[in-house]
């Protein structure tokens, strides 16, 4: 029994030591949303729901000017592992530019193979639908 208690304490202490060494740098990237008041007239921001993905929460804010998306801010993205940052650096700019090109075609709807859900896409969908 005494050995068991010792093992638990030693493990917990080890965990605390390892984790505290890694707590120095910035946390997961949380950008502050642009409040509507600070935007030029005619533009307003719509914040999508937080979508919980396997690697952390993702939240997107869309800035709309007379029904046209002019900017996409990624408010929350997982960034605590190297993998998360890789995804963030690669995927989000690509997705943002894709969104704008889709938007610039001034379409009303998209026909494609049936979707279920996915973190970012779901968030964009909800932002568009929320913007109506």
């Amino acid at each position: 029994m005494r050995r068991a208690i010792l093992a638990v304490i030693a493990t917990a202490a080890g965990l605390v030591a390892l984790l505290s060494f890694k707590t120095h740098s910035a946390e997961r990237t949380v950008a502050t949303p642009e409040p509507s008041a600070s935007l030029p007239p005619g533009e307003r921001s719509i914040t999508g729901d937080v979508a919980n993905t396997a690697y952390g929460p993702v939240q997107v804010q869309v800035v709309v000017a007379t029904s046209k998306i002019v900017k996409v801010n990624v408010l929350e993205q997982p960034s605590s592992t190297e993998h998360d940052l890789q995804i963030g650096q690669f995927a989000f700019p690509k997705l943002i530019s894709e969104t704008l090109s889709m938007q610039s075609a001034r379409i009303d709807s998209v026909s494609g193979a049936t979707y279920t859900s996915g973190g970012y896409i779901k968030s964009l969908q909800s932002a568009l639908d929320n913007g109506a």
Partner: protein
Amino acid sequence: MATAVGPRALLTAIAAGAVAVLVLWWHSTLSVSGLGGWLTGAGEILGLLAGYSVIVLVLLMARIRPIERGVGADRLARWHAMGGRYVIGLISGHALTIIWGYAVTAHTNPVSETATLLTTYPDVLMATVAWFLLLGVGLVSARAVRRTMSYETWYYLHFYTYLAIALAFSHQFAVGAAFTGSLVARFWWSALYLIVGSLVVWYRVVVPLHDLTRHQFRVAGVRQESPHTVSIYVQGRYLKELAAEPGQFFRWRFLTRDLWWQSHPYSLSAVPSDELMRITVQGIGDHSAALARLAPGTRVLAEGPFGAFTPVRTGRSILLLAGGVGITPLRAMFAALSGTVTLIYRASTWQDIVFQSELDAIAEARGAIVHYVVGSRQEFGGDPLSATALRQLAPGLHRMDVYLCGPPGMTGSAVAALTQAGVPRRRIHYESFEF
């Protein structure tokens, strides 16, 4: 002498592996923050250590000959049992901190987060089944529960650990943060599992089958030594290649319809020749009775030799201290040792003494001394193997190398008495028979 990996070397290697695992976590984590981050980080570390420890436990039981020779089967079994309890703790801690950590990060409650993890995260359901399997095996291995079932039942239930390891493997790569982004990490982790798996197959399947065909073990004959003790003579060919040393044991599987599915460790009770080996089994149960009825010619699957309990030549006088069935390996040692040897053979009644004529003959031929200490404590009016008594039976005890074998209670008190009599700990060698 065959290559042997000592306990210190083995522990160092295991520790080095654990450090490497922690380095893996270190490299794959950039920062940790917030309660959710801390919990998830703890969960990742615990998970990595658990995945590593589980394969170490398998390695300990893989019957790798150099390790068995250097560390000893009894010590390996004890390490495995202790490690098993710790690993179950690691896995449970991993599961709980991950659930809690994910729940905090996603701003949901742990119950719904558990449901999310089980239904949407790949392979987590299988890993959870694996967790419960291991909890079950751990429960069944607890001494209180193990006593209620036969050894064979417990042994076969224990095989579910392999299933648990297989079930849990995929979730490590599918969801483990240290692995999803690193092909190198996945490669080395897979290599670790593959190598240990191969060692298990090699030493537990390939080598015994090879030995069976090469040496053609068969029962040569059976002799009743005493009411409860029977010696089994096993014949074969090229037995010298096995390089069995006095004090070592084999794991014996007698290939009859009733006995083929059981494997038991018994020490050689005589120095083996190139064609013949002898084991001596004491017992009152069905198994010993069945052994007494073994027909000559019965095929035997003999796995071994195992055991670190062998005499080390130091030039010192030697004391062999046997309690009850512990005489078996010491009888082999008694015949093989040169120099000044004293044998003290403790038993409760004269009925339990075996090999008396052999021991007396060896003693006379080699000029060695045998002391039979027979009787209950009441008859002796105290412990007949106290420090004082031992000093009288073996003068100059504190300068001797002592080899001790017997039931756990007897070995425990004997070690204490020997230490009290001035024998340094490093010169007391013993093997504890409780597996």
